[in-house]
């Protein structure tokens, strides 16, 4: 008996999830590529000799070449495309992460409150979510950006504020299923106040689905941001983002196709990786599915 136990190490839920995730080749490839892209975006601009807005008068809109110093070519203003893509990646990834964080915070607060309170409050709060669910959210984000100025911090909050609905539903479901578990009842019997009960006992146990959904929210938000920037309503000069670069490239694609293809490739690859990681994480945390 003791031998049997010695050979099978007991792992936590996250331990088993990690084991399963490691076996998922698509997810692991996605995670590695994602780490490389993120690292390139963070470190790259310091290592490359070009500045974000430096104009190379000898190379205006020149195609990619290894011979010149511009590996991915330059844009219509003679600015190095690779540096712009990496800078844009910082902005796109930062918005993706920040807005997802906003969505996670609102979603957990809303969902846990509705699920724990139950009854009329639950009905009212989730009905509110249903109503918002039916609306074309991007239109409201666009109104917000137009009327209150195209501020990047506002963009974080606005995109987060439209992405929390699914999160709230997931957390509510988890909360309801955890609410009457023995360990929660035990804590309650010991006189733990409701806020502490939710934050210390319920929410930490609902984090699995939240993590999965957060991973799938990041590409969604990056997509929204590029969508807005593509229309000229998101990130503004002198800052840039992948959506801005794709928009510039689409206008000049007949004469300078690399300006469209290079940023589109970065954006698409990132979205691919995030989707693979999210799917892998879901399969790892929920082996039945």
């Amino acid at each position, binding site marked *: 008996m003791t031998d049997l136990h010695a050979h099978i190490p007991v792992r936590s839920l996250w331990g088993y999830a990690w084991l399963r995730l490691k076996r998922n080749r698509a997810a692991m490839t996605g995670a590695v590529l994602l780490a490389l892209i993120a690292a390139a975006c963070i470190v790259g601009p310091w290592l490359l000799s070009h500045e974000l807005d430096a104009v190379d008068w000898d190379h205006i809109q020149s195609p990619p070449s290894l011979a010149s110093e511009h590996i991915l070519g330059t844009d219509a203003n003679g600015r190095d495309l690779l540096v712009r893509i990496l800078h844009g990646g910082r902005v796109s990834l930062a918005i993706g992460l920040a807005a997802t964080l906003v969505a996670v915070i609102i979603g957990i607060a809303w969902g846990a409150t509705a699920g724990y309170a139950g009854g009329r409050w639950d009905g009212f709060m989730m009905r509110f979510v249903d109503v918002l669910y039916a609306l*074309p959210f991007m239109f409201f984000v666009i109104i917000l950006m137009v009327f*209150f100025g195209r501020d990047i911090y506002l963009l974080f909050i606005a995109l987060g504020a439209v992405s929390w609905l699914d999160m709230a539903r997931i957390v509510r479901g988890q909360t309801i299923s955890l609410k009457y578990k023995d360990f929660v009842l035990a804590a309650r019997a010991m006189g733990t106040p409701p806020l502490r009960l939710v934050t210390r006992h319920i929410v930490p146990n609902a984090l699995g689905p939240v993590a999965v959904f957060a991973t799938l929210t990041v590409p969604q938000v990056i997509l929204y941001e590029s969508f807005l920037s593509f229309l000229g309503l998101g990130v503004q000069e002198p800052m840039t983002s992948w959506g801005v670069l794709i928009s510039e490239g689409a206008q000049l694609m007949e004469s300078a*196709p690399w300006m469209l293809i290079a940023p589109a490739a970065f*954006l698409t690859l990132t979205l691919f990786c995030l989707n693979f990681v999210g799917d892998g994480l879901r399969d790892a945390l929920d082996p039945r599915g």
Partner: protein
Amino acid sequence: MYAYAVRRLLGAVPTILAVIVIAFFMIRLAPGGPFDSERAIPPEIAANLAGAYHLDEPLGDQFVRYLGNVLAGDFGPSFRYKDYSVTELLWSGFPVSAQLGISAMVLAVLLGTAAGAYAAVRRNTIVDGGIMALAMTGIAVPNFVVAPLLTLVLGVYLSLLPVGGWGGLSHAVLPVVALALPQVAYVARLTRGSMLEVLRADFIRTARAKGLGARRIVTRHALRAALLPVVSYLGPATAAIITGSVVIEQIFGLPGIGRYFVQGALNRDYTLVMGVVIFYAILILLFNLVVDLLYPLIDPRVRYD
């Protein structure tokens, strides 16, 4: 069912009201006004303008007036397209947007369910893997990337299709395809998933035991049950297609509502932007209602009593 429809319609009223309230007050609380420009306007003219657009009344009165007009189908005058009312602009753009959106929706449902069902029947083969890889691509590649790339290859390099404008069938191909692709992908994934579940169900085994042909089992028995999640996805799909049409109309220069919306947003044409949002929100709510009412016709287990 009739009572349910009425109840749902009444239930939609507060939602529409909320949309109008949010849209109206967002604008009024925003800094700046519609007639701000670099050149200062003489105070008399500014007062006249404000009077003409009722901007000098108390905010509450303005809201009541706007609400009354909207309910009567009048979204007020456009601030930038002089001599046009927002309602006129909406109606001039609607046929184009509707054609584009409905075509994309039909394409998404037909192609998506066919591909998804086929992948499920051939599960774990190369065909299945290929279809699912394509679906993943459709989801990961946004339509504002697909649209220019398709234009570049099919329109510019191969000169098969016109790259912009609106007119015959050939003009519609690229925009419709670009708009539909992500939805085709979603529908295919949904159909495959539910089809795999349905194919394991008892009634399929019964059908097989009766000696029904494989083709008939799939098309008559399995597909019908597997389409239920697709039907409930039609609501979110409408919202996604309407949002997507904004960018597609912009890329291809189509004279639809989405293009007016973007132009309005860039020009700070407040009434136009509000008009489009309210119009589309009502449209989506109505469409969701229609889908819900159709549901019991497809799935007899669902009843609204």
